[in-house]
């Protein structure tokens, strides 16, 4: 090689990592909400890792286990990247859908996989999992970004259907079970109802919205809440898919609502919070939308008593009077990333998980927010 060319080759080689960094795309972070089970909290901390932490007196919690565990050889090959759906706790197991490493059944006591026992089960799944799993009658249901709906036996992870059901567009929302029906939303803007018994269609036609549906929730056995990025929030009759309420928000709605008997509360991507009375059609607003200074709301709100708790992208935790829409307090959270996980309610408190894996507890009594220090979490 001509030595005069060496500096040029060196410069090009040095540029490679710089260019490679420039082309990085937005990586999956995940937004699974913290799930509380007695004194244990299951939190998704980073890169699709889940930790079981035990709440102690005061504002502290210690990790019992983390999965995948970087200190265990079998786990080193598992790269989940992110967890979007909330983990499902059932008996002595934790069921978990990861973005790119498949579905796991973990032993609640030690966090070790019950299945799959050898690595991952991604070879059985086409696409990534941008939602979670729904558990009904011993069967786990989950959808993928490639538009496949799977049903697996929760006991051993074996397929419950001979073939997954195929849809035209990806499934990002966690499937919902209400009564004896399974509901599935697609990014093509459709909601399908399937009989749990045999997977046959339960509605004559699917519900069709003009925008993608990335989330889906059951308000009760008879009603579904369908947020869409066409800026609408629909309430559907679970019986036949007809629209009970259709409310046009000011921006994308992609969040779980906080629900009372007759009201729903949710935020939008333009930083507005809405309170709707859904007992009538069309749904009527309880108050003018509350402005959160333009900060996007992805995290589902929580309602405790008459206090609505909303965490936005900044992140700021806002306490709102659910009856009047008056802002009671706004508490910024410093240096904690952002909040996309739904706010979880337990024991009269709201739990907020940030993208940096920090856990906070909001108190609706005095409108304050305090951090729960997590120790022993492996990242």
């Amino acid at each position, binding site marked *: 090689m*001509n030595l*005069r*060319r060496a500096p*040029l*080759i060196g410069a*090009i080689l040095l*540029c*490679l990592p710089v*260019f*490679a960094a420039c*082309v990085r*795309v*937005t*990586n*999956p*972070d995940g*937004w699974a909400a913290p799930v509380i089970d007695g004194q244990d909290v299951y939190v998704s901390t980073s890169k699709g890792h889940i930790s079981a932490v035990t709440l102690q007196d005061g504002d502290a919690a210690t990790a019992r286990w983390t999965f995948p565990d970087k200190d265990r050889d079998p786990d080193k090959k598992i790269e989940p990247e*992110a967890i*979007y759906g909330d983990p499902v706790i059932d008996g002595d197991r934790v069921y978990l859908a990861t*973005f790119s490493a498949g579905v796991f059944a973990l032993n609640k006591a030690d966090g070790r996989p019950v299945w799959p026992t050898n690595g991952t089960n991604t070879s059985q799944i086409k696409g990534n999992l*941008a939602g979670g799993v729904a558990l009904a009658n011993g069967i786990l249901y989950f959808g993928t970004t490639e538009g496949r709906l799977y049903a697996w036996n929760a006991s051993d992870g074996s397929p419950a259907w001979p073939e997954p059901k195929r849809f035209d567009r*990806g499934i*990002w929302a966690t499937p919902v079970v209400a009564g004896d029906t399974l509901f599935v939303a697609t*990014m093509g*803007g459709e909601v399908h109802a399937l009989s749990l018994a045999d997977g046959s269609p339960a509605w004559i036609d699917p519900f069709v919205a*003009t*925008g*993608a549906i*990335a989330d889906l929730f059951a308000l009760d056995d008879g009603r579904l809440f369908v947020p869409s*990025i*066409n*800026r609408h929030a629909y309430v559907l009759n679970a019986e036949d898919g007809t629209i009970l309420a259709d409310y046009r928000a000011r*921006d*994308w709605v*992609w969040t779980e609502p906080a629900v009372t008997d007759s009201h729903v509360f949710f935020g939008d*991507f333009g930083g507005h919070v809405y309170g709707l009375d859904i007992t009538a059609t069309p749904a009527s607003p309880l108050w003018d939308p509350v402005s959160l200074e333009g900060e*996007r709301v*992805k995290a589902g709100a929580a309602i405790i008593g008459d206090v609505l708790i909303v965490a936005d992208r900044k992140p700021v935790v806002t306490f709102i009077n659910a009856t009047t829409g008056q802002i009671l307090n706004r508490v910024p959270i410093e240096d904690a990333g952002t909040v*996309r996980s739904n706010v979880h309610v337990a024991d009269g408190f709201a739990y907020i998980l940030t993208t940096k894996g920090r856990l906070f507890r909001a108190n609706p009594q005095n409108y304050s927010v305090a951090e729960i220090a997590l120790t022993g979490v492996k990242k």
Partner: protein
Amino acid sequence: MIGEIFTLLLMNPMVNLLVLLNNVLFDSFGLAIIAFTILIRLVTFPLTLRQLHVTRSMQGIQPRIQEINKKYSDPKRRQEEVMKLYRESGVNPLGCLGPMLLQFPILIALYNAVRIALPNSPEALEKLSSHLYDWSYLQHAVPVQEHFLTMDLREPNLLFVVLVGVTTWAQSKTTVTVTTDERVRSQQQMMNIMLPLMFAFFALQFPSGVSLYWVVNSIVGVTFNILTYGFPALRIEPIFKVRAPRAPAAEIQPTTAALTSDRELRTTHGSGRSKRQNRRRRP
């Protein structure tokens, strides 16, 4: 501040145009990328043409520059003579920089727009919301269909890795080399190999939607080069005639005039000519 202006004035319009084209072109994001790249390159063609013209003019006076380099050993005097030659020939050595600098942010925005409009994760779709205009026709289209000709545009694709390498190489080969200096020429020849390899390496990590943009961009670049310089190997004459640099009043040499004719202007390795042949022609 600059980043916000860049996003507001360049990137957001491009993202929205991409999504609009996706809607118009049968919900095919692959077709949208192809149409979008060609459209932007056509809009910026006057800039490209100007840059190509300046490069070509520079090529024309290279033999004279080489003569000056041989004639004057004092660097200061040499520089003065070269500048004088530029003046007399009506060539601005920095003339190709202006159009290039203007195109650079456009290309970056184009590249980013493709990445943003093709979300590879839920977070990326969330991010897209802040770039889309408040127009239901656009809002209803996202997320766009990720597949094009059975390929997932969000994932790297080996076919596109090869295509990126080949088209980048083809673009280098059809680009005029300005210098006649042997050392610089050999470096440029090496770059003609290294650049395609480097971009093929990047394409291993790119979503193939971005690679598709790059391939179309390179094909359009090759087309422009051929339209401007012709392609002697296939006996294709240039369509856009370029004015030859003005001959210096007193020192014009017949050989120099001959060298500035269309026939003698050649691409990097001289289409249809060997490196050895090129060397022989030099004075």
